[in-house]
């Protein structure tokens, strides 16, 4: 409400009612974050002493650079797949107005499933020997695939699994953007004779820019931190073909108890996530209309 409280009324202060939430945030988020940074800079470790030793080690660590490349590979391939397929699905849903009943359930189900369950299904369906996926591939006349057991393809397969789970989510967000586009723009376009693909490319797509970038922000945060499905299915393998930064950091911290170094890797990952969000947010400002 825009108007000020009437004279004679004192503006009630209920600021104190957020104290419990602030306490939880301080204890469980702010303090641990500070502590993680302290650990990353060698705090509490006699071996390295306080300083940038962990970050120097990181710069010289081939496993770190490999994990960084893999993180970006997964991030870019899955993001592009999901934005393209999600937009296509949204255009169809918008055109035929069928987002209700069974279609809506089918669309919402994948991304409400626990990623762990998706991983468990992938183990069974994508099994190179007995899985249903190879049965379909063979019925179509192709040679069976190794799927997650192939060092060359495992990362792409992970990207495809995530695309299966999250394309509907992107589609729903883009659908919301499509439905809020001003109708008069389309009327003007029709007068100018822009139809079909030309209309999509020159009018719809630029107008969808902000919506697509919102979807990109939401997905990139999850994709850069990707963990569950990899940990369930390949645990970073075969070799280290699916060892993302998050998987690498987790193994360093909890399997090898290399706490300070693990914290340093996690700090880099957190900065990457922050950087990508700021990048997309900045881009979003430039394309907004």
């Amino acid at each position, binding site marked *: *409400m825009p108007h000020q*409280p009437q004279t004679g*009324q004192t503006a*009630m202060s*209920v*600021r104190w*009612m*957020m104290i*419990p*939430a602030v306490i*939880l*945030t301080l204890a*469980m*988020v702010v*303090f*641990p*974050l500070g*502590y993680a940074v302290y*650990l990353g800079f060698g705090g509490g470790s006699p071996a390295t002493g306080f300083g940038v030793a962990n970050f120097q080690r990181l710069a010289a660590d081939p496993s770190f650079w490999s994990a960084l490349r893999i993180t970006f590979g997964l991030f870019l391939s899955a993001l592009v797949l999901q934005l393209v397929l999600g937009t296509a699905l949204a255009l*169809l849903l918008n055109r*035929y107005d*069928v*987002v209700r009943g069974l*279609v809506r*359930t*089918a669309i*919402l*189900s994948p991304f409400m*499933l*626990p*990623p*762990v*369950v*998706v991983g*468990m*299904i992938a183990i*069974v369906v994508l099994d190179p020997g007995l899985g249903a996926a190879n*049965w379909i591939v063979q019925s179509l006349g192709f040679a069976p695939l190794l799927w997650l057991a192939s060092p060359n393809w495992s990362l792409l397969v992970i990207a495809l699994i995530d695309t*299966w789970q999250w394309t509907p989510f992107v589609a*729903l*967000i883009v*659908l*919301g*953007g499509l439905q*809020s586009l001003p109708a008069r723009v389309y009327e003007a376009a029709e007068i100018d004779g822009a139809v079909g693909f030309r209309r999509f490319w020159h009018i719809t797509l630029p107008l969808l820019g902000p919506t697509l970038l*919102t979807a990109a922000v939401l997905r990139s*945060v999850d994709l850069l*931190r990707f963990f*569950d499905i990899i*940990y369930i299915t390949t645990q970073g393998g075969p070799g280290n073909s699916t060892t993302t930064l*998050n998987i690498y950091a*987790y193994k360093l*911290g*909890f399997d090898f108890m290399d706490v300070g170094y*693990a914290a340093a890797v996690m*700090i880099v*990952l*957190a900065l990457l996530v*922050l950087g990508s*969000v700021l990048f997309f947010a900045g881009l979003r400002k430039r394309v907004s209309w």
Partner: protein
Amino acid sequence: MDNKQRTLLPTVLFSLGAIIFMSPILWMALSSFKSPLEVTAYPPSLVFEPTLENYEELFGRTEFLHYTWNSFVVAGLSTLLGLVLAIPAAFAISWHRMVWPATVSLFARMAPGTLFLLPWFIMFSNLGLSGSYTALVLAHAVVTMPLALWILLPYFDGMPREVVESGQIDGCRGPTILVRLVLPMIYPGVVVATIMSFVFSWNYFLFALALSGFDTKTAIVASFNFIGEGTTNWGALMAAATVIALPPLVLTFMVQRWLVAGLSFGAVKG
């Protein structure tokens, strides 16, 4: 003829889409009712005699019932804690039109969970809480509280300010106004926040993986251990997956109308 074509194409496309998105989930449910011999048959069988063997194995010969109970305890209590903290906070944030709390919770949501995990692990060990329900519930509240806050804020913002002011005139204090006047008006938001918090907490893997003890493992962590043990009992594995998938799917189905609207709203405004 033209009209027929116009309805045929979308029907085919949407059927195809529905098959792609639903078939892995249906395959999971189907496989959970196959006998051990049937589930590894190649080529896979679509027609078979359904059996409850896998569920008997899962609940009879493993502690899975106990782990499922753990999941309910952790998801339920962290949802409760998240709401108890988020409702008054959302009220205060909305009433005073504060901006920074939303930014803070956004940053918290962006940080990789692994970044919290190491300090938590050390904290809870020092407090003698490692492996306890308390540790798990607190960790999951970090997921549920910001989520509930995000869902609730638009409901609080959309409520007429006069409602609160009228309570003030009657001499009521903040908490009374919140419980007696505001909550009855925004209960749909509270329902959605409850359901979504429960689903997110139920689905969360990483925190329970590192922080749960032998007795407090959630169903999700337990089924990960089944895989680790090298069990090739796919039937039991799919039965476990089906049991874990059921609560989120049922709850999502209940709030699907809101989900579609809520997501699009966030995108347009976001």
